[in-house]
C-alpha cells in the first residue's frame, strides 16, 4: 500500500491559521504551528544527518526540522522583521474539529470547590475522516474489535456487579477507537505494551476476551495464573506484548529497549505503547522518549489525552496547549489526531509504524478524547462537569464509526451490521462462560517462579543471532587514571 498520509493540501484538513497562542515568555524562540504547514513530512530528512549515535541507520537523523517556509499563511516567516531567531515547527493535526473549552476550579455559592467547564460545548459533531489507507475489510475488522472491546467491558461490569471480580474494573469507554485502530496498525513482528484502558489493543493482538476476564476474576487459568490482574500480563513468545505495571511511564524506556534488542539482531521493528495526559507527567516518560530519540528507535508513543487523570483535569497536568508539542523538544515528529476517529488513529499510527520499520525513529501521536467513566468502577466521576460528558457522548467512537461504515461508505449493510454485533455478543458470552468456570488458584500456587531456573526458559535472540562486527583492537590492561582512587 502506498502511503503518503499527511495532508498535502491545506484544504484537505482542518486549518488552524497561524499561531493561536502567543508565547508566554518574551524572547521565546520556538513557535509551534499546529496547522499542517508542511507536506507529508515526519522527518524524512533528505540531508544526511551529522548525528552519529550508535546504531543509526541510513536516512535517520533529527526528524523535526524548522519549517523554512510556512504554507499556512506565511505570517510567521523565519526571516521576517525582528524575528530572525524565530523557529517554526509543524505539528500536523488531523482533527476535523478543535474542541475549544477549558476546565478550571471554581467555588460555588455554597463554598465548595468544583471543576467547571467553559467554552464551546455545542459544536457540531465532526464526520469521520477518510482514511488514506484502510480498505473495507480492514475498517470493518477494526470496527468489530471496537465492538468486542466495548461488549467485553460491559460484560466485566456485569461480572463486577455479580461479585465475581476481585478488585476494580477499568474501562476504555470512549477510547476504543484509539486502542483498537492503533494496535491494528502494527505488523506481526512488532511489539506493544498496553496501559490499563487499552484492553481493546489486546484483542486486536490476538488475546481472547477470556484472558482479560480471568485476570479480573483472579482465576487459575488467567495469563498470570492469578498472580496479577487487569491487563497486567504479557507474552514474549507469540504476541510480543510486554506486561504493564501500575506505575506510569515505565513502559516507554522498556519498549525502546525492545526496539534496541531487535536492532542489534538486524531488525527495525515498531514498538508501540501508550501514556495518558496524567502519566506523561512522570520523569521516566521523558527519559524513555529521549532515549528512543537519541538512539533513533522505532517507538510509537500514543499519548492518550483523555482529559482526566483519575480526578485531575489535564489543565492541572501540563501547561502547553497540546502534548504533541512535547515532540519538538525531543526532536521527533509529533502529530495530533482525534482519538474518537478510528481512521485518523490508524493512519497516524500506520505512518509511525512504517517510519519505525524504515529505521527513522520514534513518533509521538497525541490522541484527543475523553475518558467516559470514572478512573475505575468505584469512581462515579462526579467531579467531571456534566456538559463535558454530554459533549463527548455525541462523539462516541463506535456510533460514529458505525454510521460511517453503514451510511457513508456502505461497507456494511444494516443486516450485516446487526449480524456482526450479534456475533460479537455471542463470542463475549462464550468467553464469559469459560472465564467464570475457571477455578481459583490453589493457595500454594503463590509459591515458586521467583527465578527463572532449572531450564524453565531457553533464552535465544528473537530475530536471529546478532551479527556482531568486531574491531581489530585487542585486549589490553587499563592503567588509566580514575575517579576516587
Amino acid at each position, binding site marked *: 500500500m502506498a502511503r503518503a498520509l499527511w495532508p498535502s493540501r491545506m484544504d484537505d484538513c482542518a486549518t488552524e491559521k497561524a499561531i493561536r497562542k502567543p508565547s508566554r515568555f518574551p524572547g521565546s524562540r520556538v513557535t509551534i504551528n499546529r496547522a499542517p504547514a508542511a507536506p507529508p513530512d515526519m522527518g524524512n530528512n533528505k540531508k544526511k544527518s551529522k548525528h552519529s549515535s550508535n546504531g543509526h541507520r541510513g536516512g535517520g537523523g533529527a526528524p523535526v526540522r524548522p519549517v523554512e517556509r510556512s504554507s499556512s499563511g506565511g505570517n510567521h516567516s523565519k526571516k521576517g522583521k525582528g524575528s530572525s531567531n524565530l523557529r517554526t515547527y509543524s505539528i500536523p493535526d488531523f482533527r476535523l474539529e478543535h474542541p475549544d473549552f477549558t476546565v478550571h476550579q471554581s467555588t460555588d455559592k455554597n463554598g465548595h470547590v468544583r471543576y467547571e467547564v467553559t467554552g464551546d460545548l455545542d459544536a457540531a459533531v465532526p464526520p469521520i475522516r477518510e482514511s488514506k489507507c484502510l480498505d473495507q475489510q480492514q475498517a470493518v475488522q477494526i470496527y468489530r474489535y471496537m465492538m468486542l472491546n466495548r461488549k467485553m467491558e460491559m460484560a466485566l461490569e456485569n461480572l463486577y456487579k455479580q461479585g465475581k471480580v476481585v478488585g476494580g474494573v477499568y474501562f476504555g469507554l470512549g477510547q476504543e477507537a484509539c486502542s483498537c485502530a492503533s494496535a491494528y496498525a502494527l505488523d506481526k513482528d512488532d511489539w506493544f505494551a498496553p496501559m490499563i484502558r487499552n484492553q481493546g489493543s489486546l484483542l486486536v493482538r490476538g488475546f481472547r476476551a477470556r484472558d482479560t476476564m480471568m485476570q479480573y476474576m483472579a482465576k487459575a487459568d488467567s495469563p498470570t495464573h492469578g498472580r496479577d490482574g487487569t491487563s497486567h500480563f504479557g507474552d514474549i513468545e507469540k504476541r510480543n506484548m510486554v506486561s504493564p505495571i*501500575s506505575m506510569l511511564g515505565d513502559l516507554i524506556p*522498556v519498549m525502546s529497549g525492545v526496539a534496541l534488542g531487535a536492532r542489534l539482531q538486524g531488525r527495525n521493528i515498531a514498538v508501540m505503547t501508550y501514556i495518558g495526559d496524567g502519566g506523561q507527567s512522570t520523569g521516566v516518560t521523558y527519559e524513555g522518549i529521549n532515549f528512543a530519540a537519541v538512539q533513533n528507535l522505532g517507538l510509537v508513543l500514543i499519548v492518550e489525552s483523555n482529559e482526566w487523570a483519575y480526578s485531575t483535569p489535564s489543565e492541572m497536568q501540563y501547561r502547553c496547549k497540546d502534548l504533541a508539542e512535547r515532540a519538538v523538544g525531543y526532536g521527533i515528529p509529533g502529530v495530533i489526531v482525534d482519538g474518537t476517529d478510528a481512521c485518523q488513529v490508524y493512519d497516524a499510527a500506520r505512518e509511525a509504524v512504517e517510519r519505525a520499520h524504515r529505521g527513522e525513529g520514534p513518533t509521538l501521536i497525541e490522541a484527543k478524547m475523553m475518558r467516559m467513566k470514572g478512573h475505575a468502577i468505584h469512581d462515579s466521576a462526579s467531579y467531571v462537569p456534566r456538559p463535558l460528558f454530554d459533549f463527548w457522548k455525541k462523539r462516541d467512537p463506535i456510533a460514529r464509526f458505525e454510521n460511517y461504515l453503514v451510511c457513508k461508505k456502505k461497507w456494511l449493510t444494516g443486516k450485516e451490521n446487526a449480524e456482526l454485533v450479534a456475533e460479537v455478543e455471542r463470542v463475549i458470552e462464550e468467553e464469559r462462560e469459560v472465564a467464570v468456570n475457571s477455578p481459583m488458584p490453589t493457595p500454594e500456587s503463590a509459591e515458586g517462579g521467583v527465578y527463572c531456573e532449572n531450564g524453565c526458559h531457553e533464552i535465544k535472540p528473537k530475530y536471529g543471532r546478532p551479527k556482531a562486527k*568486531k574491531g581489530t583492537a585487542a585486549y589490553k590492561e587499563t592503567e588509566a587514571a580514575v575517579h*576516587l582512587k
Partner: protein
Amino acid sequence: MQLTYLEAIRQGIWEEMERDPTVFCLGEDIGIYGGAFKVTDGFIDRFGPERVIDTPIAESAIVGAAFGASLTGMRPVAEFQFMDFIPCAMNQISNMVAKTHYLWGAPAPLVLRGPSGGYVHGGPFHSQNPEMWFVHNPGLKVICPATPYDAKGLIKAAIRDNNPCVFFEHKYLYRRIKGEVPTDDYVVPIGKAQVAREGKDLSIITYAAMVHIAFEAAEILSEEGIDLEILDLRTVSPLDRDAIVATVKKTNKVIILHEHSRTGGLAGEITAIINEEAFDDLDGPIVRIAGLDSAIPFSPPQEHHYLPKLEDVVRESRRLKAY
C-alpha cells in the same frame, strides 16, 4: 595470572562479549571514555558503538532499555557510574524487572553493575552500599565479590544467568588488590558462599571489602591463639543458608560484619537464619559489626568513624572468644 579486581571484572565482561554476540553494554560514559573507573576501557574499539552504548544521564531509561532488550533474548550489561545512583531507577528495578518472571513468566537476563562501597572519601553520594534494597526484592540476584578470582567468575556467571543480577563492585578493591586468575574460561556459582579461611574458634560472616579486614584481623588474632573462620558470602541474595549454618555448627560463635548501616542490615537476616536453623549450636551472642545508622560522611576522620574497622573486628573477636 595476577590481576587486579577491576581487571578481572573487565576481562570477564570482555570474554563474555567475545563469546556471545547477544551480550552488550550500556551506561553513562562507557564508550570512548571507557567508564568512570575504566572498566569498559577499549571495549568500543573492539565491539563497536552498537554494543558499547553511551546513554543519556537517565538511569530509569538505562534499566528500562536493558530490560526491554533482554525480552528479545539479548543479555545487556548496564553500568551504573556509582551504585549510589541506582535508586534513580528503583521503580524499573523493583516493580518492572524483579517481578517480571514471577508475575508473567518472562525471564530478564540482564546485569546491573557498578562500583559501591566506602573507604575512598567519596562522600554520602559516592560511597554507599545499597545492596540491601535489592535483597528485599525477590527475583533479583545480588552479588558482591571480594577477590579478583570471584569477581571474574561471578560477572561471567551473572551475564550467563537467566535472571536479573545486581553486581556490586567494591571500588576500594578495584586497584588495591591483586589475585591469581586462571586464563581458562570458568564461572563461580551464584548463591554459593565460600569458607575463605578455615578456623575453629569463631566465624566471621562477611563479604566484599570486609573480607579483607577480616583477614587482617585473623592475622593479628592468630598470634594470640584465636583462630578465626571467615565465611565469604559472595552472593547476598539468595543467601547460602547451608554455608551459614555449617560455619555456626563448626565454631559455635559468630560475628557478622558488613559495611552498610546496622539497622535493617544483612546481619539481622543472617541472625534470623541462625536462630531458625542453628540456635542450639550457639555458645555466645551473635555480634554485629556494621556501619553507623546515618548517611556516610565525607571528611576522612568522620568516614573512618562511620565504617567498620580492623580494631572493631579484633576487639569484638577477643570479647566473643572470651564469652
